[in-house]
């Protein structure tokens, strides 16, 4: 995203139209521009494509539906972004969402009130994130192995706690959360927007954000500079767990029950959204808006294909092709 140093002052001084045109053309043939903006380009492309082919796609109601459907994935991809920025990966994300939902359901069923249930669900998933972080740093086990292990462990825990049975959560608060609107957006969309804003500020305007990217980019230099990289990593995984907790509340609100079943597409799509968002899987390079738009793009893709009556069999294929294409374009990142 950073312009070459000699271009930047020039375009700032001179008239925008005169000077920026050559640089815009230069931008358009520069592969790294496309790499940086892959998710935006993809989203715009999809909106044009589906807007032309399906009359319903661009309707206000459908736009609202896409945003509502994307809210959970946006929150999860933010969590995944923090972890990936440290050059890690959180495979336990979708399982944490399931455990959060199960705990929420059980505590609500026990009659402790919906707020206590939500808070405890978020605390539980954050604790899982914390545990992931501790095992990776203090235990010196690769992130992939640790989160794969917790993925399985949490799955079992969820099944044990729930007895394999779904729990109904008939709460008016959650019903309002899922179906209520404030202005043009549903409440879950506002939750996602708030998460994007907070995460963006945390990543770009705090010392923690700088330390996070330094830890992911050059861990050794970062620790030589006095950054406590282990703490930063633990924090990143805890944030990921926290996001899983928020997502589990949104999930229970949306489907009205807490089910001990893992939605694997949430995990895969969270990683896909992060890749689409231009976040480097080797760490040190991240944005929040990119993955959020990536999540929106994946949701819009499934929505559009559904509107066009494309068979469900082709939809994962389309997602796969787009993710791999995005990764290919990403090779041209500077």
């Amino acid at each position, binding site marked *: 995203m950073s312009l070459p140093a000699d271009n930047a002052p020039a375009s700032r001084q001179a008239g925008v139209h005169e000077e920026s045109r050559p640089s815009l053309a230069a931008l*358009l043939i520069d592969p790294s521009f*496309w790499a940086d903006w892959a998710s935006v*380009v993809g989203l715009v*492309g999809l909106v*044009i*494509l589906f807007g*032309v*082919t399906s009359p*319903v796609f661009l*309707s206000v*109601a*459908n736009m609202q*539906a896409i945003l*509502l*459907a994307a809210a*959970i994935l946006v929150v999860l991809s933010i969590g995944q972004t923090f972890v990936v920025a440290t050059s890690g990966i959180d495979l336990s994300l979708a399982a944490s969402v399931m455990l959060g939902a199960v705990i929420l359901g059980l505590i609500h069923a026990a009659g402790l009130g919906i707020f206590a249930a939500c808070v405890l669900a978020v605390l539980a998933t954050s604790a899982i994130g914390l545990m992931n972080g501790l095992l990776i740093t203090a235990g010196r086990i690769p992130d992939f192995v640790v989160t794969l292990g917790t993925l399985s462990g949490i799955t079992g825990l969820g099944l044990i706690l729930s007895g394999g049975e*779904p729990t*109904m959560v*008939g709460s008016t608060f959650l*019903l309002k959360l*899922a*179906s209520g609107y404030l202005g043009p957006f549903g409440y879950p969309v506002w939750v996602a927007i708030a998460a994007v804003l907070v995460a963006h500020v945390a990543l770009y305007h705090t010392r923690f954000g700088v330390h996070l990217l330094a830890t992911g980019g050059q861990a050794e230099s970062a620790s030589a500079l006095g950054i406590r990289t282990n703490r930063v990593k633990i924090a990143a995984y805890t944030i990921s767990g926290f996001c899983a907790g928020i997502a589990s509340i949104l*999930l229970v609100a*949306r*489907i*009205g*029950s807490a*089910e001990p*079943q*893992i*939605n*694997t*597409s*949430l995990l895969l799509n969270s990683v896909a959204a992060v890749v689409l968002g231009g976040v480097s899987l080797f760490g040190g390079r991240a944005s929040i808006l990119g993955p959020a738009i990536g999540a929106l793009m994946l*949701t819009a893709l*499934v*929505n559009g294909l*559904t*509107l*066009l*009556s*494309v*068979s*469900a*069999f082709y*939809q*994962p294929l389309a997602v796969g092709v787009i993710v791999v294409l995005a990764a290919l374009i990403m090779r041209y990142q500077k």
Partner: protein
Amino acid sequence: MRMFNCLALGAGLLATTFAVPAHAEDAKVAAIVKGLDNPFFQTMQKGIEEQAKADGVGVNVQAAANMGDATGQADKLTAMALQDYDCYLVNPISVSNLVQALVPVAQKKKPIVNIDSTIDAEQAKAAGFAVSTYIGTDNVAAGALAGEEMLKLVPKGSKVALVAGIVGDVGSNARIKGFKQAVEGKLDVVVMVSADWDREKALTAATDILAAHPDLAGFFAANDIMALGVERAVQTSGKDVKVIGLDGIVDALKSVAAGELTATVAQYPYVVGAMGVEACKLAAKGKELPANVPAPVLLINKDNAEASLKNFPRPGGDYPDPLREMLK
């Protein structure tokens, strides 16, 4: 720039390929089923599509990505709810995951046909709607059919054993209940075990039961997979013990045709899907739908196993279909 060209080209292609033809069709049906990673629901999808073709009804069948994709299924239904369909055919992953997505459908006063898995009536009521009709298989009736066949096969007062699925499973309980009701007072149920829907566990359990009860006359297993395991145990023992299963999967039909498994009670996801389309067509004609329509269950023994195999996934012979009668 090349990318934009590609996108434009792609848009054009998609527009020509996927634009839904909207002519010469009585009604347009939107269908959403569970994960197509399971053959049961693939068969259901086939039933929906073939019946729609036969009836001249336009249909868009969508499915969840997998059996855990409760929100994805709701998202797809939400998208379809915005389109101009005349009828919505839904097979929800859980009793509540599609409730919110169905609210706009109900507001447009479009019929909602619930197939296979039920939507919780309480939650639907809280959301302000009720389904137009429910079409599904009655597990108790299916179990009873197996019980009646067993009565024909073994002398009165014979000993039989029951092999259930996972403990507490609603479907398993209903099938066992139906069988017990049918044979009550006429046969002696000596033992009931749970084999977790598993072929190997059923084989082991049946071996033990045969050793404990040398004069056993028959087994009823709550699904075909377990029945095939039980049949293997019976074969090994060399005894003439009748084995009846339930589901009507291809392997079981083949086994019945080969004279190994005695009988099975077949359910037809294909017919459940097809009947859903019929219900939509009825609704489009302005007919009142019955609240509950039982899908057919048929007994398959050596006489009709070949025909059933040939017609799979359709039933081997004619079957009762109240909706078809109403369409006439």
